[in-house]
């Protein structure tokens, strides 16, 4: 008989983040899970799982730390103060959403370890913020 196992990456991690961001932004910011880059609109978020490390524990549970990237893209043709303000407003809102809402779901110790800001090389005219996050989940 096959073991009963949880698809942790999908259910506990990526869909949890996707759900938290969708609840906050509704339809104004589409949130996808993908490994490849493709333009999905004027502004969008792509969640990419990178790696996981086991947390040593004496409990009969599987505890791991998951490392992910969240890429936020926003088109900016005007390149003025207002569009830069809007870009960073969404960045801050994503960051605070991750810290505020994710503990409602079975994840903990969420950290936005770093965010880098750049003009995307692949999509001309898009600004890009790459969030490096880590979080724990037990199953």
């Amino acid at each position, binding site marked *: 008989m096959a073991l009963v196992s949880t698809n942790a990456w999908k259910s506990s991690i990526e869909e949890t983040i996707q759900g938290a961001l969708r609840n906050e932004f509704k339809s104004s910011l589409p949130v996808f899970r993908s490994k490849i880059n493709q333009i999905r609109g004027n502004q969008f978020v792509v969640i990419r799982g990178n790696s996981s490390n086991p947390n040593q524990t004496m409990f009969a549970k599987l505890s791991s730390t998951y490392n992910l990237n969240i890429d936020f893209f926003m088109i900016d043709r005007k390149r003025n103060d207002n569009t830069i303000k809007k870009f960073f*407003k969404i960045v801050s809102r994503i960051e605070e959403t991750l810290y505020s809402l994710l503990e409602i779901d079975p994840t903990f110790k969420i950290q936005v370890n770093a965010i880098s800001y750049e003009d995307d090389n692949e999509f001309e005219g898009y600004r890009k913020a790459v969030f490096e996050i880590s979080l724990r989940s037990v199953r």
Partner: protein
Amino acid sequence: MAISSNNITYDKIMTPLRDKLRTEFKGALPIYFDTKHQDIGTKSLRIYPTSQELQEKRTSSFMNLYNIEMDYVINTKLDNEKALDVMYKDVSRIETVLFNNSNGGSIPYFYAAMPTIEHNIDAGIQDSYVSRISVPVLYEEVHEKFVRFVTSNDKFFVLSDGSFYIVRS
């Protein structure tokens, strides 16, 4: 339910820095935010954050280090000492403004260290001298926190539509 959030990078990091420099230079030095150089005068200062790193995570707050890049550009067709001296003078003045405003003020602001300066960098701008000033800025933000409502027998409080009852922590 939308959370309340601040535009940290723009309102708390970039704008105070720009305003302090604008107060000092008045209209003599156009200052703007962008990743790319804009041709807006004989000399200009471009401000843009390149990255941020988490320094400390507390129960309801996080402290980040913001790495801010500022490119001072002075246009000169002649490779002369005069333009070089103007650049050195302005950059020293920027450094002094940063030192004098390293903490406190109307908006809590703290430079994690004094800026590093590279002169005569190649930024791909024709007929100009460019100095790059890198400023590390620390900022701590308190965030909202929500948890599920737990009943006395350790069960989650579930509403009639199946959603959880969520309370501010």
